[in-house]
Each structure stands twice: as C-alpha cells, then as structure tokens.
C-alpha cells in the first residue's frame, strides 16, 4: 500500500469519539493497573491457574489443549475440552510476550474492557450518531454488572464474552439489514469468538440473538410490504421472502458454528462424561440465587458472595444512570429519526425487561421448564445479556438530541454530551474498585495450584468414572514439596516383583511410555489419571516401539483411575490422550470453515479489485 493509501486508510479509521471511548475507559482499568491482584475475587484464582495450566500444555507443543494434567490434584481433567479457550489463548499470547500469569490475566481483563467499549461504539455509531454511541459505549463499559464481573467475580471468560457481545449484535444486525459477504463473515467470526469466549454465555445469548434477527427480518419484511396490507395470498410469498431475508443471518450463524466447531462439538458430545453435579447443586443451585426486586435498584456493593435470602454480600444493581436512561429512552424513542435506531431501542427495552425478569424469583417456573437454564447456575448471570441492551439504549438521549433550535445555539451539544457521559461515569465510579490482596496460595506454581484446589472444592472436577472426589493425591505431595512428577504410574498398585515390573520411560501431560514385564496375562498397570474418552493404550514392541495392539482400558478404584491390562512378556505400554471422533470432526469442520472464509474473502477482494479496474 502506498503512503497516500495508508494515510487515507488511517483517516478513514480515525474516529476521535472512538478514541474518547478508549480514553474514558481507562478509569475502569484503574484497579488493573495496581501492581497487586484481587486474589479474593470469586474466580480470581481460577482465572490465573486456568491460564497456568493452559500454558503448560502450550509449552509442550499442544496447540489446542484439551486435557489439563495437574487439575484434580494431578489426576487430570479435560478442562479445556468443555471450557471455552479464547481468553486463555489471548492470555497465553501476553504470557509469551513476557508477562507473568497474573499480569497476563489482568491484560486480558483490560483488553476485554477496551474491546467492549469499542464494540458497542462501532455497533451503534451508525444508528445513534457519534455522541449517542459514545454514551452507550461508556455506559456498557461502566455498567455495574460489567464491573462486578471484572472486580468482584474476576470472571475472565465472561468478561471477554461481554466484550464480544456488541460485535455479535453488530454483525448480525448488518447481516440482516445490509447483507453482503463482509457482514456475514463479520457476524460469523463474532459468533465464533463468542462461542470460544464463553459457551455458557453463548448458550444463553443465542435464543436472544435469534429473536433479534427474527425481529429485524420482520421489520424488513414490513418495510417491503406493510403487514396490514397482507392477504391470505401474501402468506406464501411473504414466508418465502422472510426466509430469503433470514438467509444471510443463517449463513453467519453456520459460519460461526463452523469456525468454533473445534470447541463446541466435542464439548457438547463429551460433556456427559464429566461430572456436573458439583456445579449444579449446593452453592450452585439456582433456586438460592434469584435477585430480589429491590436489589435491582439498590446501591449496595460488596465483595462477598451470593446466597439465599435478600442479604447477599454482593450488589445486583442494574445501574442508576443506566436504568434511568433506559426509562427516558421510552420518552425519546419517538424522536429518533433513524428507523434502525428505533428498532434496536424497542427490541433492547423489551429484551431488558424480559431478561431482568429471568433473574427474579417469579421466573422460577421458567427455569424449571428450561432444562439447560440450570447450567447458568446463577439467575443473575442473565445480567450479562441485559448489559448490552440496557447500556445500548443509554445513548438515545443524545441520539434524540435534535438539531439546534433558535435558542439552543448557546447550548452546544458537546456540553450535554459531557454532562451525560460524566453522569454515567460518576454513577459507576464508586464501584470501580477491587480488593487487592496477597495470594493465600503463595506464588503461582504447581504447589500454589494444589493449595488452591484444596481450598476450592468445586475446582476438583471429575469424570463420570470418578465415584469419589479426591481431596489430595501423592502427586500433590510432590508438587507441594517442589518436586517434579516424573511418572503417573501408580507404583503403590503395581507390585514390582517377580510377577510384574514396570519402568516409566517418558511422560508428558498427555502421554506416558512405560516399559512393562509381566509374568502372565493377568497383570495390569494403573495410572494416576482420571479416565476420559480419548485416552488410549497401546502395546508396543520393546525394541522397535511398533504398535502391536491396542490395549483395553479399565477404570479401577473410587477415583476411576486408568488401568491397563498388559499381556505376558516384555513390552512398552503407551498411554496417550488422543482425539476422539467428535474432536476430529470438530477440527475438520473448523478447518474447512476457516479455509472457506479465507477463500471467499480473497475471492471477494479479487472480484472487487477487478470491478474497480473495470470501472
């Protein structure tokens, strides 16, 4: 690109209001700039140690980690097979650039804040104008639930999902209203990013997104031929037109699903093989966590936990300024000149009302009937879906600020913008704080991970073959003493006598090679590893290491540990965590989707260039 071209591009991309969004978001980053970390936040330790474990796999050359060897006190757990990994890829990027684990996690949080504001601004700029979009973007950055996610919960995946949500809305809005390959590709990529950020938020958000798309499609249909003019004869062609209008959004959805299939396909199909009971009962029983009506309006803010009754240790306010601006949006709705803006505001207000209702006890009946709703664990998690809509409508007051009147010339619009932006920031500023403290587990390390797991019961994930959740392990002892685990063979179970002899030759997080000598066919080797689909055992030739046969895997003991019967003689036993058919299928679909996306984008670019030359 020539220098002139670069300058043109820069001038096109430069938007002072977007820069202002990023600049004013810095207040929200304040606690992240503190040298310390809010270790006491609900998931603060989780986020750091998830990244720690992710990094251990990446360092071993596993580019798409699924098995986390050190979770469950070293018995391992298929964590990233069922947990969206995007936040950890980004965090790993920061870590590889030289940041510590804590700093990398904080960087991801910071990036999510900046992205969330930018996304909301870009989504609404065309509809609300720059000032309105600025207000909505900052309202989104500073909406209390967003700050709650950042500094009270320290929920890394959900924070990133909050950053992606406006891009998804933007993409699908464009895909319906201005369908072209760019909007379809953008929507698809945004949806994939959402899926890879938080499968839970995706699960909750997709029905809302579907309704939004349907709403937009119906609006477009009505624009073409108003519904009041429809007759019975119009129904069939109307339905066909409806499908036609919905196709770009459907294509975007398929693209998004395709790009993220590497994650969601095995996650869905293999999720039944992990125990979910400890995440859905007790503390995580949603019945105890419905929000009281008064809490939606209460200024209370805390760093405690959510529990049964009205005395939660945390605040569930929607935001005084945000809610008031949403109420006022009803008043100003009629003044919006842009039909797209009016539609978004109407939908956003309705969605806000319904989603807020979902967080309250009267919605319990709905929760009972929707089987997957319980995976949200906490009804107040629906606030993450409320946030983009509630914050989105905040900008209406500025979007509806009509042309300057006779006497308004003395009151420049920027002053009103400054007032409202200031009020939104002012309303949330008291909540931009974190409880910085020292880590109780000591420095981030395997020893720290063991101590952390010991104090966080729900962290000890298990597979369905595990009947008893371990409280500690021999490997944890080694980690705590600063020693390496060089083998996961359970030598306490392997007699090491004239009947059976084993010697671990090689081990990584996802495999182990063991020399075995067995006097007969009745012997077996047990590993300190939970069984999960994908673990495969092979008998190799002792000298050539050629695969002689696949060995069956059994599970033994209350922990359901991998146990491999070995044949008589001297062999090498290879235990390896491999891709299952769903994982292979997921990878293939993602690869094809990515290739298709790249090819079509390239083709479009070539065609457009050709078209321009022809012109």
């Amino acid at each position: 690109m020539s220098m002139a071209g670069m300058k043109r591009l820069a001038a096109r991309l430069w938007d002072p209001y977007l820069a202002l969004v990023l600049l004013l978001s810095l207040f929200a980053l304040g606690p992240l700039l503190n040298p310390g970390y809010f270790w006491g936040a609900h998931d603060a330790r989780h986020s750091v140690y998830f990244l720690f474990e992710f990094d251990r796999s990446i360092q071993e050359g596993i580019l798409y980690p699924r098995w986390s060897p050190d979770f469950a006190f070293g018995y391992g757990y298929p964590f990233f097979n069922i947990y969206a990994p995007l936040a950890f890829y980004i965090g790993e990027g920061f870590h590889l650039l030289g940041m510590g684990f804590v700093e990398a996690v904080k960087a991801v949080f910071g990036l999510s804040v900046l992205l969330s504001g930018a996304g909301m601004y870009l989504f609404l700029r065309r509809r609300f104008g720059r000032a309105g979009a600025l207000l909505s973007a900052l309202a989104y950055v500073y909406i209390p639930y967003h700050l709650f996610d950042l500094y009270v919960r320290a929920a890394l995946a959900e924070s990133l999902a909050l950053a992606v949500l406006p891009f998804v809305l933007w993409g699908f809005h464009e895909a319906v209203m201005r369908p072209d390959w760019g909007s379809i590709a953008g929507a698809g990529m945004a949806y994939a990013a959402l899926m890879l950020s938080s499968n839970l938020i995706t699960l909750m958000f997709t029905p809302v997104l579907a309704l939004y798309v349907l709403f937009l499609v119906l609006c477009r249909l009505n624009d073409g031929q108003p519904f009041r003019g429809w007759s019975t004869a119009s129904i069939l062609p109307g339905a066909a037109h409806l499908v036609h209008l919905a196709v770009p959004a459907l294509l975007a959805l398929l693209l998004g699903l395709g790009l993220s299939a590497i994650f969601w396909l095995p996650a869905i199909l293999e999720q039944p093989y992990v125990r979910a009971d400890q995440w859905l009962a007790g503390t995580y029983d949603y019945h105890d966590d419905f929000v009281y009506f008064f809490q939606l309006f209460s200024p209370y803010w805390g760093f405690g936990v959510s529990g049964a009754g009205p005395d939660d240790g945390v605040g569930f306010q929607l935001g005084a300024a945000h809610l008031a601006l949403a109420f006022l949006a009803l008043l100003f709705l009629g003044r919006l000149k842009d039909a797209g803006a009016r539609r978004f505001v109407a939908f956003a207000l309705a969605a806000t009302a319904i989603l807020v209702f979902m967080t309250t006890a009267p919605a319990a009946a709905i929760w009972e009937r929707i089987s997957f709703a319980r995976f949200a664990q906490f009804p107040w998690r629906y606030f993450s879906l409320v946030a983009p809509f509630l914050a989105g409508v905040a900008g209406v007051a500025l979007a509806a600020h009509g042309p300057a009147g006779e006497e308004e010339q003395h009151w420049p619009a920027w002053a009103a913008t400054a007032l409202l932006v200031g009020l939104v920031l002012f309303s949330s500023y008291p909540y931009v704080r974190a409880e910085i403290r020292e880590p109780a587990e000591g420095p981030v390390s395997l020893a720290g991970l063991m101590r952390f797991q010991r104090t966080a019961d729900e962290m000890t994930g298990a597979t369905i073959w595990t009947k008893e959740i371990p409280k500690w392990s021999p490997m944890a002892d080694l980690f705590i003493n600063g020693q390496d685990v060089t083998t996961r063979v359970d030598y306490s179970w392997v007699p090491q006598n004239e009947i059976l002899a084993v010697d671990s030759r090689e081990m990584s997080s996802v495999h182990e090679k063991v020399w075995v000598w067995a006097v007969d066919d009745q012997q077996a080797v047990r590993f300190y590893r939970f069984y999960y689909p994908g673990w495969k055992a092979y008998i190799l030739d002792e000298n050539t290491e050629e695969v002689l046969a696949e060995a069956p895997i059994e599970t033994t003991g209350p922990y359901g540990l991998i146990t491999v019967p070995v044949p008589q003689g001297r062999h090498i036993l290879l235990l390896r965590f491999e891709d299952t058919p769903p994982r292979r299928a997921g990878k293939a679909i993602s690869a094809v989707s990515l290739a298709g996306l790249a090819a079509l984008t390239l083709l479009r670019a070539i065609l457009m260039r050709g078209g321009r030359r022809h012109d």
Partner: protein
Amino acid sequence: MAGWPPRIRANSARARFEMNTVPKEHKIFLPLCIFLLLGLFAVAPLTRPGFPSTAAGFRPVWRAAAFWACGWPAAAGPEGILRGDGPLPLALTALLTVSGMSTPAAVKAAFALAYLLAGVFLFLWLAPRWGKEAALVAAVVYAFAPYRLSVSYVAGGLGEAWALALYPLAAWALDTFRHRATWRRGVLAIAAWGLLAFSQPGLALFFALCAGLFFLLAGEYKALIPLAPALPLLLWGAFQPIAADFSDHYPYLFQLFSAAWSTAPSAPGWMDEMPFQLGLVPLVLAGLGAATLLSRRPAAGTRRWAALMAGLILLVVLSLRVGDGFWKISHLASLLSYPWQVLGIVTFGLALLSGAAVREIPALRTPAWLAGLVLLPLLAVYGYLMPAWTTIEPHAAPVGLFGEHQIALVDYRFEGTLQPGEHIALDVVWQDLRPLEADYTVFVQALDSANTIWGQRDIQPREGELPTSTWQPGQIITDTYAFDVERGAPAGGLHVIMGFYDVNTGQRLPANAGDHVLLTFPSPADAVVPACAGGIP
C-alpha cells in the same frame, strides 16, 4: 387574571418559541409513566422482605392495626390529633390489610404510594402549564429530595410522608381556584386541603398558614377563600400544648448543606446525625430557576416568584434556632413535632423552582439536557437508598409498653418448661420508642398465684453492655434472660412477669399491668390485641 404558575404568553418571542416546543395536546401519559418508573428507585427498598428500621420503629404498623379496633384519634398515638398520624394513611393501610396484606406490608405500600403520588400530583399540576419536561424535572427533584427520603427511611413518619405527598395536590387545587374562582373549584381546593389535613393535621394547618401568607404577599387575595376553613382550626391548634422537646431539635445551618447521611434518629444538639440536607441538586436547580425568573423581562409573575423565594428563605430561618422566638411568641410550634418539619415545604418549593428553571430555559427541555436534569437528582441521593432494615415481624400491637411509651416489648419466646427445677431462657425483642435517660434494669420473675418469687433474673440489657440510656429511638434490641425455677416451686399455677426498674431508686417503669408485663407461655398469644386506651405508642 394572570395564572400562577405563569402560563406562556402568546405575544412574546419566548412564548412563540415555547408554544412550538411544548405540545398543545399535552401528551403527558408517557412522561408520567417515566416518572413512575423512575420513582421505583425511591420505593424499591420497600419491596425488601422485612420492615424499615426507622426512628418510628413499628409504630406505623401498630397504629394501622389499631385503626379499625380503636378508631382515630386513639390510633394517632400519644402525639395526639395535631401531631400524630392522621386518619387517611391509617385508614388506607387498614384497607390494604383487608385485601390480605400483612400490616407491615400494608404500611410499606402506604409509604410507597405516598412517594409516588407526590410526584404524580406535582407532574399533573405542572405539565399542562409548564410543559411535560419541566413537570418531569420538578417531580423527580421532589421525589428524590433528601428530606423526603429522610422522612420515609430515617424518621419513618407515615403521616408526614402523606402530607408531603399531598402538598402538591393542595397547591394544585388552590392554584386552580386562584386561576378561576368558581364554587366547584373552591370545594375541590377545600377537599384537597382536607385530605392533607387527614394525613397530618398539624402540618396541614402549617401549610395553610404558609399558603395564606404566600397569597397575601403575592397579592392573590381571592385565593385565600378556600383557606378560610383552616383559620379557626389554626387558632385552635395554636392553643394546643407544644411538644416537650420541640426546642431541642433545631437543626444547625451546616446540617442543611451537609453531605452527611445516616439512619440515626434525631437527637438534640449539633451532633444530631439525622440528615436534614436540602439537597445539592434541588438547591442548584432551584437557584438556577430563581436567577432566571428574577432576571427575565418582562417581569410577569415576578411578585409571586419573589414571594415564593422569600417564603422559602423564611421557612429555612424558622427551622433554625434563630426562629425560636417566632415559635414561642406565635405558639405555632404546637402544630409540629419538630422545627425541621418545615423543611418539607421548603423541599416542595425547591422542586417548583427547579421545574421553573426548565420552563424558563428552552435548551434544558431538549432530550440530552432533560436526561441530565433527571439523572442529577437521582444520582445525588442514590447512595442514600439503602435504609436500615429489620426482619423482625411485629405483632398487631406491642406485647408490652414501658415508661411513657418509651420501650416496646415487640416479641418474646421461652425455651424450657415452667416447672420446678427447670432452666428457663427467655428470648426477647425490645424496641426503643423514645429516648431514656436512666439505665434501667430488666427483671423477669416466675411467680405463683400468691406472688411468691420462685425464680428470677435481674440484669441490665445485654448483661450490662447495652444500657437503656444508650438506646436510640427505633432501635431493636434482642436479648436473652435465663433463670432457674426453684425445685420447691408449686408444680402448676406459675406465671412469669417482666419489667424495668431503676436500680438507684427501686422505682419500676410503668407498664401494661401497672409496673410489669405478664408473659404467656411460651410466646405471646397469636393475636395480640391493641389496647385502645393509651396502649398505642
């Protein structure tokens, strides 16, 4: 006759502009709904399970429960007809209980209704005259005025909360009459004032006095006609006794401007923690409105506005100690429980001036500025919308009352059986209703029919750690008193009494049955019935 609040004149440039910006059809339903939605911030705390822990304690609950049984003025409490809760809020609460609500829930609903109605009346009054934007701002400023929050969530005055709700209605009715004096409008004005009088008679009379003086100063003599019925009542009221501690509760000037907020009840002296602030936003907006009104040309209605502003300043002065002479000479202190209650009218006036600022400055009616002006009063007090709360469920009446309605026995429960040789634990819930000067000792005694003591416990509350002189009005104190019933006690016919006495004099505090309360075993009877004769605190 020129209207007040002044209507827009069609022959001025400003008026032409305003005629274009204020829709003639006055579409006020939607903005009214917006106000009600915004009002949710103020009333949402009332939806919390339990009851607000205010200086009034459970008195509004007990008075409402007594309304059917004892009627009014017995249910007004010891403050009497003038200064006690009026029959309107009590009747409304009692009616709500008929619909199946518990009495505490009904009282909370009555508070919420008062809160919302105040803004509704103000909005409906001003919207057709000043435009919906000005009316919305005035209503929001009034809804989120710190003094109103203080009345509902700190003082817990149900009657006063309703009086504050009905000031706009009474003013609306008087203004309508002043605008065009017809007998029908006169009746409506009297009826509106009557509703105010049924909410809190003393405050209604003081409001009538203020309104009368305002109309005199403004030269609107005709508007005095509907206030005439208040005159004899005012004269009668002025001869009623003054509250004993009226002069102890003048706020200090700094308190009117202080940002401090607490849920503590009013106490004599400058250390009084009860919030009396007029509110930064109402003062700033009212100041803007006042400056705009006084500087405008032509000066239509300036006399009225000047009278309003002067009246507000005068009321502020009267709320302070410098006004003590006025109250003593006029004897009008008999109308109020505390001098700071005049701040309610000041708050109302500030809301009017705030709305006038929007009416006078067209730019403030544009969406962006209007949104800002609506947000400001809300955000300024948002942190105060977290009242102290209790989950104690009161009975329909206090189980016992001690002193001069100073301590209420809210509830109790025995653990153990009242038999010889048994260990008894008595869990008690007290509520302080009025300050106590002495440190009283609690006594619990197990007596037989001959009043022989077979077991007893004498101790200051919380084993001496919470002496009664430190109790604050509205404070709830839970305590446990344990004692053993002697082995030689008769197997049947024992009963338990409890009360307070001054350890220095041995003098017991008066109580339900003379100087003690008889406790049924193991807890109060299911339906604690209000004692109408002097038994309603």
